[in-house]
C-alpha cells in the first residue's frame, strides 16, 4: 500500500512543501499525491523530479489529479 498525501485545496507552496517533506522521509518507494489545480500538479512533479522521483502515473478524475510518484 503506497503512502497518500491529500493536497487538494491547499495554496502554494503547501502542496510542494508537504510532498517534499514526505518524499524525504520515505527516501524510496511509492507516494500518491492528490491535487486539484494544474499549477500544483506541475509544481509537485517538478519538485519530485528534483529529488530523483519518477512520475509513474497522472490520473485526471474530474477536477482533481492523482499523481503517483515512485523511486526505486
Amino acid at each position, binding site marked *: 500500500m503506497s503512502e497518500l498525501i491529500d*493536497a487538494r*485545496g491547499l495554496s502554494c*507552496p503547501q502542496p510542494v512543501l508537504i510532498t517534499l517533506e514526505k518524499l524525504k522521509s520515505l527516501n524510496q518507494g511509492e507516494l500518491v499525491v492528490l491535487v486539484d489545480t494544474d499549477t500544483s500538479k506541475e*509544481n509537485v512533479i517538478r519538485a519530485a523530479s528534483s529529488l530523483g522521483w519518477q512520475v509513474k502515473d497522472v490520473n485526471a478524475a474530474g*477536477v482533481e489529479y492523482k499523481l503517483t510518484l515512485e523511486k526505486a
Partner: protein
Amino acid sequence: MSSIREFFASRVGIISVGAFIGVFAALLQKLGNPGNMGICVACFDRDIAGAIGWHRAAVVQYLRPEILGFVLGAMMAAFAFKEFRPRAGSAPIVRFVLGMLAMIGALVFLGCPWRALLRLAGGDGNAIFGILGLVAGIWIGTLFFKRGYNLGRAQSTYASVGWLFPLIILGLLALRLIFPQVPDKDLSGILFYSIKGPGSQHAALAVSLAVGLVVGLVAQRSRFCTMGALRDLILFRQIHLFSGMLALLIAAFLTNLLLSQFKPGFANQPVAHTMEIWNFMGMVVAGLAFALAGGCPGRQLFMAGEGDGDAAVFVLGMIAGAAVSHNFGLASSPQGVGPYGITAVFVSIAVLLFIGFTMRQKTA
C-alpha cells in the same frame, strides 16, 4: 495544445514570459504610461480605486485597462486549456486583509514587485532597497511556512463563484467604454480621471488592453509569479520561477537602453522617493503579505481569472487598501512617506505576525 502546454511549463517558457513582460512594460512607458511604471499591479489597482472614487487623490485616478486585460486574458487561457476551476473558501477575510496590507506596504515603497524590477531596469537605485525588503519579507514568510502556516483548504464550488470576479472586470471595462476620458475634465459620467500626475499618463486604451490580455494569457499558462520566484529560491533552492523574474529585469533593462529610457541615479526618479529605510520596510510588509497569501499581486489577478474566488478577495482587499492608503495619508509621494506611513508599516507588521503565528492547521 499539449505542446503549448509543455512550452509554457518549461524553463524556456517562463523565461520567454518574463522577457515579454519586461519588453512590453518598457514599451508601454514609451507609449504613455508613467516612468518606470509600464506595468505596476499595485499602482494600477490604486489608480482603479481612484477612478471609481474610493479615494480622491487627484493625481492617481485612471481605470487601468492593463489590469482588466490581465484578468480577462488569464480567464481565456484557463478556458482554452480547461483549467477554469471555480474554488473558494480558504480564509477569505484573511486574504482581504492581506491584500490591504500588501497594498499599504507597496504604496510606502511606491510599487509592486514588478515595478520594483522595472524601476531598477530604468536606473532607479532606490528600487534596490525595495527589492531587498521584498526578499526579507518573503524570507520571513518562509519561516512561517516551515512552522506549518497555512490558510486552510479551498473547496471546489459553483461555476458562478469563479465567474463573479471576471464579470466585475467586464463591468469595469463597460464603464470605461461608456465613460471615456473627456479632455481637461476630471470626471466623465461616474468615472474619475487625472488631469495631471501619473494617473494622467497612459497609453491608448486599445494598446493597454491588448498588452494586458496577452500578458494575462501567457502568465496564466506559465504561472509567472515574482513572490513565488523568491520564495521557491529561498525555500526549495529552485530557480524555475526566478529565471522568469530575472528575464523580466534584463529584458526591461535592454529595452530601456534601446529607447534611451535608462537614467541611473537616486534623486528625481519618476514616482519614487529616496528614503532608503522606508523603501525597504514598505516592501518587507508587502513581501510578507504576498507570501502569506500565496502570490504576488499579478499572480493573484491571474488566479482570480482562473476562477479562484480567494485570489479575487485578495485583489478587492488591495483596491480597498489603496483607498485606505490615500484617504488616511499612508501612501508615499515623491517627497517621501505620507504623514501616517511609518505608523502604518508598524501596524501592518503587527497584523501580519499575528496572522502568521496564529494560522497553523494540521493538513497532512
